[in-house]
């Protein structure tokens, strides 16, 4: 793709007519980038019966919407979505394409990047422009922040998790054009989606929970983990985990907090038996009050929280639970 200051793109996502919050967060950030480059902000949205969403996209900052409203787009289909977006990208020559790190985004982004013969960066927590107006994509690495650029290829592509950027202020006075896009004429589809099954979510929604209890390898075993689960229940908290806890088989990958998991901003975050590695902590830096329970006084986690309890979590949690219950029953 030739070099030029094309538009900034956000590929928005909806499920059953509901816009994913990360799409609006991305539009907010993309607006800043587009203004910095002096380019328009274009949003691509595919789905069925989605016209109610357009005003949200426009209020959030879109200058132009490419909307595919058709039964063929009802559910995300890799081949159909890739075909139609590539066609559009070749016409519009976007400078930047941003996607949410959702299930769709994490599959669609690399399919688009490989087809467009360009680079793609995952887990961005900051997106800035350098002096040449290149996109600087910052990701956590080695306990620090690594800057990645894509100097010679366009578009510059990145995925961002929900919660990294705030929701933009909505300006209902904004107006923008909506251009309808039709599904591809014929896709020799080699993937057929037979069924989508929604499972009952386990526990509270981590991203909206006021309190989050997260456990790590220091839980030690299933018994230790069950104490952490109990603490989350007593506090009516979302239950989060670190990668080692997922790897140990104690918790589901969907509960993982951090760089390659969820980004949460609770009022109260309690870290149990985890060492406070950057990959995890970047997922909770927005928390108001952070507490760590860990038996190692030298643990890194005590440098990254507000309150520390040096204790074996298996001994501390049952006592803590009892005291919380006493406090609650006494008002």
């Amino acid at each position, binding site marked *: 793709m030739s070099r030029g200051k094309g538009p900034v793109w956000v590929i928005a996502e909806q499920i059953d007519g509901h816009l994913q919050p990360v799409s609006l967060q991305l539009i907010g950030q993309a607006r800043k980038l587009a203004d910095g480059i002096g380019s328009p902000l274009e949003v691509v949205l595919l789905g069925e019966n989605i016209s109610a969403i357009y005003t949200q996209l426009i209020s959030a900052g879109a200058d132009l919407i490419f909307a595919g409203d058709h039964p063929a787009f009802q559910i995300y289909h890799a081949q159909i979505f890739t075909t139609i977006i590539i066609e559009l990208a070749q016409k519009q020559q976007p400078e930047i394409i941003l996607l949410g790190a959702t299930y769709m985004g994490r599959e669609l982004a690399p399919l688009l990047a490989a087809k467009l013969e360009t*680079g793609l960066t995952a887990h961005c927590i900051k997106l800035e422009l350098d002096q040449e107006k290149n996109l600087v994509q910052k990701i956590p690495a080695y306990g620090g922040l690594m800057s990645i650029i894509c100097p010679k290829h366009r578009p510059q592509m990145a995925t961002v998790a929900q919660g990294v950027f705030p929701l933009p202020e909505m300006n209902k006075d904004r107006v923008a054009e909506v251009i309808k896009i039709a599904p591809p004429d014929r896709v020799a589809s080699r993937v057929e989606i*037979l069924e989508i099954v929604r499972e009952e979510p386990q526990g509270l929604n981590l991203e909206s929970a006021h309190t989050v209890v997260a456990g790590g390898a220091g839980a030690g075993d299933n018994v230790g983990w069950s104490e952490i689960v109990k603490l989350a229940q007593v506090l009516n908290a979302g239950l989060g985990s670190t*990668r080692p806890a997922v790897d140990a088989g104690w918790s589901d990958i969907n509960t993982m907090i951090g760089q390659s998991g969820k980004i949460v901003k609770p009022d109260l975050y309690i870290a149990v038996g985890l060492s406070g590695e950057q990959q995890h902590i970047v997922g909770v830096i927005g928390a108001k009050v952070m507490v760590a329970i860990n038996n190692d006084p030298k643990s890194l986690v005590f*440098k990254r929280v507000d*309150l520390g309890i040096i204790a074996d979590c298996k001994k501390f949690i049952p006592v803590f639970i009892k005291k919380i219950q006493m406090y609650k029953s006494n008002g």
Partner: protein
Amino acid sequence: MLKIAVCVKAVPNPEQANQVKIDPVAKKLNRIDIQLTINSLDKHALEAALQLKDKIGAKVTVISMGPSEASSVVSECLAYGADHGYLLCDHAFAGADAYATAYTLASAVKKLDTFDVIFCGRESSDGATEWVGPELATFLDWPVVTMVREIVEYSTTDWIVKANTDGGYRVVKVTLPAVLTVTRELNTPRALSFSSILKARNKAINVLNLKDLGISEEKVGLKGSPTMVTELACLDNTRACEILEGTIEEKAEALIRVLVSRGVLK
């Protein structure tokens, strides 16, 4: 017979890798010797292939791109039961991002055999981008299903799989040849037996370099990578931590008092 390729990555041992940190003063990475180990999710990819080999018969080929030290990881896969092992190893491959890695793997796949299925772990423990599987599929012009958690039906022409999606899973019919990236839920990797280690001693690891693959130096490694790291800066997440002292009971009571006073425990 079904021909399966499994892409595996030799990654720095995750526990040791966590000790590599940027020095906030010198702004350099501390250097420690780290062992390479098979990426944990790739074990599940290999297991998926081996289970099919046990059930219906399959030829399992392991392909890895990495430095010469990564041959230990390919050997390990042969010991688990893979039939053939290839290490794509050349100085020109160094510094590859996901794009250049997927391109190199795709070149090897095209060169080696007419595979029916390629299994990859969903992500690696070090880069964790999840890009290589889908990009590999694109370079091969094959379909991909990411985050496969169950193989429901298989035939020589198409498979039905369950793959994770938002708040649930999708049931997908995919026409072969195809790339499938797998999750931990798919299976439990087998343990390595002594007899299998002995049997694998005679299996050779084939090393392929840039020339063997017949691809341009411009398309691989650092040169072939669209993305570039420009800076590694410190990220200060330090908070002033108050350690609560006393007996366990006293600590628990103190914690509740502070949380209530800060308005986060109601």
